[in-house]
């Protein structure tokens, strides 16, 4: 089977390149009010021509329909992206989020109007707390990295409240996602790299040396970005706690844990979830997601306002928490996204969530079984969880790189796995199938990858060719950035 669309050319004008016209694509609501001839504004404030295109509705529809057809998407094919958890996005969720009483809900409507949505959000907080073993949850952050920032601010607030101002550092394993050190830097922490052990896990000896009273905490991903469960996680958390630090857990890889173990039970003090990973909310080409944060009781006083509280069966917004760090975004959260996460958790229920995790881990280990003879497994001593880390080491003699294999996968209708991440190994391929892929798909994927690895390097470098555009010149794009239609050179 092929999953791509060979033969379709790609040539779609920009909306700015349509012939100039007086078309319109919208007819605005009628009004009975007599609108004045000239605008009721100081004339010196009124602008001239903006330069927006004028398209009719059919032209707009055709334009965006055609654009959509040049995208690879999850509904169309397999995306084994490690650490992204590209699982099926249930269609029911779209219906849920579009219900008029949610879609039209204004956040400043009078008390009573938004009781239903507040109830939903409160229930989501409860469920996320239970899933993670935490005491409270904030739904405010708009994305995982936003949640990281919030979590680190909470850690900072905790230490400051205790009068402990010496703790300026955050320990971060070298395998961590780039958002970890950048979030730390935004909170004015100094990120200190913790070199991983030879087995791909946190090195307790290195931690022992690094963990002192100038360290506010550690950011851990578990399972880590090599797909491995940190077997000494309890010892790591204990050591950090003993020396006065707190533990932040990056929950990007929760798909390996739900129903089996909980970050709170491991010793984490704060974590974030990615609803667009573990909880199936759609990626939308890069967002919106949501990054709810869970905390243990020691961090509850600092949570951002307002807090949802149950006041005798009625859910209210409490704006008064004294020690709250404030707000990290306007209003309450990416509610449209959170509705989808609520629906997912309620649909699956406790048993479904555990089944999800078991199937995700089974699928990943199955892929490993299929690929381990042909590809280098950098950390073979421990079974991976929900994602498999391989490298291109065995293909080096044939001058085949991870990049070549990735482009070859595209040629064959698959989205490539995560490549060149984590940075702890060279030529990384991080493969995460998720539980919503069939054995048939996994067999086909493994088969294809193995076949590709046996091709001539020169053949692979032609790929992808059965795609709308060939390899795009990213060097040119960075040397001479053209970032809007207006700055396209004429002629």
């Amino acid at each position: 089977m092929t999953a791509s669309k060979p033969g379709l050319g790609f040539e779609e004008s920009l909306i700015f390149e349509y012939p100039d016209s007086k078309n319109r694509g919208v007819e605005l609501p009628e009004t009975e009010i007599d609108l004045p001839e000239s605008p009721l504004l100081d004339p010196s404030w009124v602008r001239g021509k903006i330069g927006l295109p004028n398209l009719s509705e059919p032209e707009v529809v055709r334009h965006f329909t055609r654009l959509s057809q040049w995208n690879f998407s999850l509904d169309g094919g397999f995306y084994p992206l490690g650490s992204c958890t590209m699982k099926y996005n249930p269609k029911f969720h779209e219906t849920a989020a579009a219900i008029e009483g949610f879609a039209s809900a204004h956040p400043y409507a009078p008390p009573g109007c938004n009781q239903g949505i507040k109830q939903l959000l409160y229930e989501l907080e409860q469920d996320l707390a239970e899933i993670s073993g935490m005491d409270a949850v904030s739904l405010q952050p708009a994305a995982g990295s936003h949640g990281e920032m919030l979590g680190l601010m909470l850690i900072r607030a905790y230490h400051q409240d205790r009068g402990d101002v010496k703790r300026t550092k955050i320990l971060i394993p070298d395998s961590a996602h780039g958002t970890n050190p950048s979030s730390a830097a935004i909170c004015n922490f100094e990120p200190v790299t913790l070199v991983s052990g030879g087995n791909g896990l946190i090195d307790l000896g290195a931690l022992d040396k690094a963990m002192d009273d100038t360290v506010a905490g550690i950011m851990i991903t578990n399972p880590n970005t090599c797909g491995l469960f940190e077997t000494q996680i309890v010892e790591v958390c204990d050591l950090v706690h003993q020396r006065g630090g707190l533990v932040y857990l990056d929950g990007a890889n929760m798909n390996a844990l739900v129903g089996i173990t909980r970050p709170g039970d491991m010793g984490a003090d704060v974590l974030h979830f990615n609803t667009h990973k573990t909880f199936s909310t759609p990626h939308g080409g890069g967002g919106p997601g949501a990054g709810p944060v869970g905390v243990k009781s020691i961090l509850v006083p600092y949570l951002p306002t307002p807090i949802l509280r149950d006041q005798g069966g009625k859910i209210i917004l409490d704006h008064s928490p004294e020690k709250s760090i404030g707000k990290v975004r306007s209003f309450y959260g990416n509610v449209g996204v959170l509705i989808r996460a609520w629906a997912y958790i309620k649909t699956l229920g406790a048993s479904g969530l555990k089944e999800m995790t078991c199937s995700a881990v089974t699928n990943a280990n199955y892929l490993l079984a299929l690929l381990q003879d042909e590809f280098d497994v950098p950390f073979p001593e421990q079974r991976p969880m929900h994602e498999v880390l391989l490298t291109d080491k065995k293909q080096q003699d044939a001058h085949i790189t991870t990049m070549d294999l990735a482009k070859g996968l595209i040629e064959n209708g698959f989205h490539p796995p995560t490549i060149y991440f984590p940075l702890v190994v060279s030529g990384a391929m991080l493969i995460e199938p998720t539980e919503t892929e069939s054995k048939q798909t996994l067999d086909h994927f493994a088969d294809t990858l193995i076949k590709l690895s046996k091709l001539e390097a020169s053949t692979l470098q032609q790929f992808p060719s059965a795609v709308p555009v060939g390899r795009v010149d990213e060097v040119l794009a960075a040397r001479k950035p053209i970032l809007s239609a207006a700055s396209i050179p004429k002629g």
Partner: protein
Amino acid sequence: MRYFPNDQDTNQAMLNKIGVDQVSDLFTSIPKSIQLDRPLDISAPRSEFSLLKELKEKASSYPVGHSSFLGGGVYRRFIPAAVGALASRAEFLTAYTPYQPEISQGSLQAMFEFQSLLTLLTGMDVANASMYEAASGVAEAVMMASRIRPKAKKVLVSAGLHPEYLEVLKTYLAPGDLQLVQVPVTPSGQTDLEALANLLDSDSLCSILQVINFFGVIEDQAKHQQALEGSKTLNISVMSDLSALGLLKPPGDFGADIFVGEAQSLGLPLSYGGPNLGVFACKNAYLRKMPGRLVGLSEDTHGKRAFCLTLSTREQHIRREKATSNICSNQAHCALWVTIYLSLLGEQGIRELAELNLGLADYAATQISEKTRIKRRFTGSVYNEFVLDLPCNATLWIDKLMQEGILAGVDLSRFDQSDEGGLLVCFTETNSKEEIDLLVSKLGELA
């Protein structure tokens, strides 16, 4: 469970290939002490049917049939059906971030068009592919300003800035050493630019001005630009209702160095305040200090025009702790939604939209002044919302009107408990003359 394609037998076959007897054998690397020995305390699985019923019940608390005059940072916009129909296409909705350009040209071109549309609307040189929403966008703008001028530490912020944007800014600035200084508004409702001028010195990093401020009053952008002339203080201009840019001269014309906007106002559903869409734009000179993703034009190996993410070395996945921001997932799908909306609206449409909003608010203001004794709090020109001083407790009155089918406006005591009579009323293209007349008559009964 219907989302998992591998049934029990298939799973068993896979476990066999893996070389284990049961699935619990796959979790042996997890210490027993932290393995759950009980099911999660979460409800049992539910059918789509029963969940939909429950969701509809929950949604029913919002009075969708009421006439509404709520504004204050997010706006009721007429959203044409074509927008949702196109944006909900699976190829857009379920696509990943376009890191592999060869198979993401749809998303990439749409984002390039988004960037282009926003630069035209705002008059700025370059716009990124989105931030989360305006409030955190303002915070990121200040952080960017600080990268441009690392030695200046004073942030001047107008009292007309949306109170939630101010709160978020305070939270983001707390870990650092920048100080916030507020610039008051005058009785007209505009920022006191003389006071601003007096605060300028070598330590002033930036001046944050919300062009149509939280009170609905339009600021004098030209005078703001003049006040900053000769100073190195950066001009950060902010806007909530971007539909005004259909008529109003844009901040790019008045020397804005950085622009932050809330593009929920360009056709996104209200959705209880999120997901929204932060617009972030700046001058070319600062391009490499800008946060967020950028889509650029390039070519493929055959010389054909193609788009790709570019200048990624600013971003977290490469620059890590030296990144311009930690942002990874943004609001890409919301940006697509707005791109489609603006494509439908076009040059004429957005101008008409702005005229409609302006005209309806003006009608309401005139009626209120002629037929009631309710006074406006500020004298400055407005776009589509303004503040009324009620002679009674606004909260109680709003509640009374809700019982009568009207969502009368934003209760300003939300932001300042002592402001008991403040009501922010907003008129958009979704309000009919009849609705406005009814509101006016209710106001008339008050005094």
